[in-house]
């Protein structure tokens, strides 16, 4: 029980800012503002309607202040929860609560990052940890590599199976005009790419791009009067299991198990009812872990599950239809883009990569498998 009402709020607008490598001098707040402008245009609302502001970026200590000043608004409800890439799934739950309680009527959730332009070191300053830093882990890659090593050891998961996740993402990306990657990718190419942290080559690891975006949320009665069909928040769940990889209880089981259960319970749905999946694929092992923990295959079977194009275009389970963090874009905290793609799929706006769907699951991951948050979305037919 999380106190949230099923379909108590809807997403009515969704948009990316410029992605990839943005113009020199643009900052994360510029990209948030651009995303908000586009997302408001998407639903026919204006900044004057916005009284709830939720945002997160690693490049501004008090982004709620910076963004309010920039937009010239004084929002009644503000939330700048930052828990890594899943922050925006947490924001969705908070926005549902705020709308349900009357703390705001129209909430925007925004993200912006210029990590490609300014460099990862500057975009996301590493904290010193006396129990990890001396060993020079290349974070976050080494942490996820440790999790992959454990999955390989316990379940016989193979590098080729992880590579299949990257290849599926690339096939989807080739149908997304704004995806960063434009060329096909094969399993041998993934395996023979530059090794970063075994078992991961650079092709097992998400992109480093700039980018941002926003979504707009409001109450169902208001949502039905706007430009496009509302996308309802049917379920939300969240779990924090640790901050540092050395404190993760079991490297083969993520908090997605708990966050998924909560979201399914709230939605009154199960894995079999989900038509399209958007999973936070910062690394190829993530997709495998989340497919298991969210109930799409038994624990340990994720590697075999993704073989033979099952999650690729034309496969039986569409996963990461925008091309994912692996091939579409990854500005550091990728969660918002999963929500944007889920909304577009449910509105049937995805052109060649469109899949038949009435329900979508967007699952966010933050830190080093540390924070997990699941959002289940559905069309009017599912309410």
């Amino acid at each position, binding site marked *: 029980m999380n106190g949230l009402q099923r379909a108590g709020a809807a997403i009515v607008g969704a948009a990316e800012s410029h992605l990839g490598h943005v113009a020199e001098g643009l900052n994360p707040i510029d990209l948030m503002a651009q995303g908000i402008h586009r997302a408001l245009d998407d639903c026919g609302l204006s900044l004057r309607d916005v009284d709830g502001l939720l945002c997160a970026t690693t490049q501004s200590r008090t982004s709620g202040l910076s963004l309010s000043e920039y937009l010239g608004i004084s929002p009644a409800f503000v939330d700048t929860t930052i828990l890594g890439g899943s922050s925006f799934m947490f924001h969705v739950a908070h926005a549902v609560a705020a709308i349900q309680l009357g703390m705001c009527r129209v909430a925007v959730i925004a993200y912006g990052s210029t990590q490609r332009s300014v460099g990862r070191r500057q975009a996301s300053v590493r904290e010193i940890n006396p129990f990890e830093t001396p060993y020079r882990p290349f974070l976050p890659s080494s942490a996820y590599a440790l999790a992959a090593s454990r999955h390989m050891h316990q379940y016989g998961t193979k590098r080729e199976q992880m590579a299949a996740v990257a290849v599926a993402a690339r096939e989807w990306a080739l149908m997304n005009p704004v995806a960063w990657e434009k060329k096909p990718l094969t399993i041998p190419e993934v395996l023979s790419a530059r090794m*970063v942290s075994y078992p991961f080559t650079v092709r097992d690891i998400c992109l480093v791009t700039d980018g941002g975006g926003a979504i707009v949320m409001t109450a169902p009665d208001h949502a039905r009067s706007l430009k496009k069909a509302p996308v309802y928040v049917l379920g939300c769940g969240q779990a924090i299991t640790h901050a540092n990889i050395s404190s993760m209880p079991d490297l083969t089981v993520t908090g997605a198990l708990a966050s998924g259960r909560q979201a399914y319970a709230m939605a009154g749905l199960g894995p079999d009812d989900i038509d399209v999946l958007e999973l936070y694929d910062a690394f190829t092992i993530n997709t495998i872990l989340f497919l298991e923990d969210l109930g799409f295959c038994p624990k340990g079977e994720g590697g075999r599950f993704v073989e033979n194009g099952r999650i690729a275009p034309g496969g039986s389970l569409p996963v990461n239809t925008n091309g994912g963090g692996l091939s579409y874009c990854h500005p550091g905290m990728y969660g918002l883009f999963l929500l944007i793609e889920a909304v577009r799929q449910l509105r049937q706006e995805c052109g060649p990569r469109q899949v038949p769907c009435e329900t979508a699951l967007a699952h966010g991951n933050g830190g080093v498998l540390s924070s997990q948050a699941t959002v289940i979305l559905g069309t009017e037919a599912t309410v």
Partner: protein
Amino acid sequence: MEQSPLAVYQAHLDKGELAYQYSPQAGKAVFYPRVICSYTGSANLEWRVSAGLGTVYATTVTHPAQGDPYNIVLIDMDEGFRLMSRVEDMPPEAVRIGMRVRFRVHRPGGDEPPYPVFVPEEVSF
């Protein structure tokens, strides 16, 4: 509090010891050292010194842009706590999950405090 948990831990390392905390209420080892027990919320934590034996729980070899690849591991100590470390005295890619290892203190010198590393444990027959 006269000394921070980190200072106590590092003082043990100075003496060549790997120290950890023990929660009598939980009956469990606690690591990294802290002020409040993460199992019980109690401030009652005892210091103990590890016998130094553990098992590799997870391993990766990181390939820096410059310089040689190196190993990063998580070690499950026999006393029931886990820590990040490195296994030395063997090629980094030869480290295997399940391998028995023994603690050794590494003293980097300069301003850097000593920290624990591990070496393969000789198996006796």
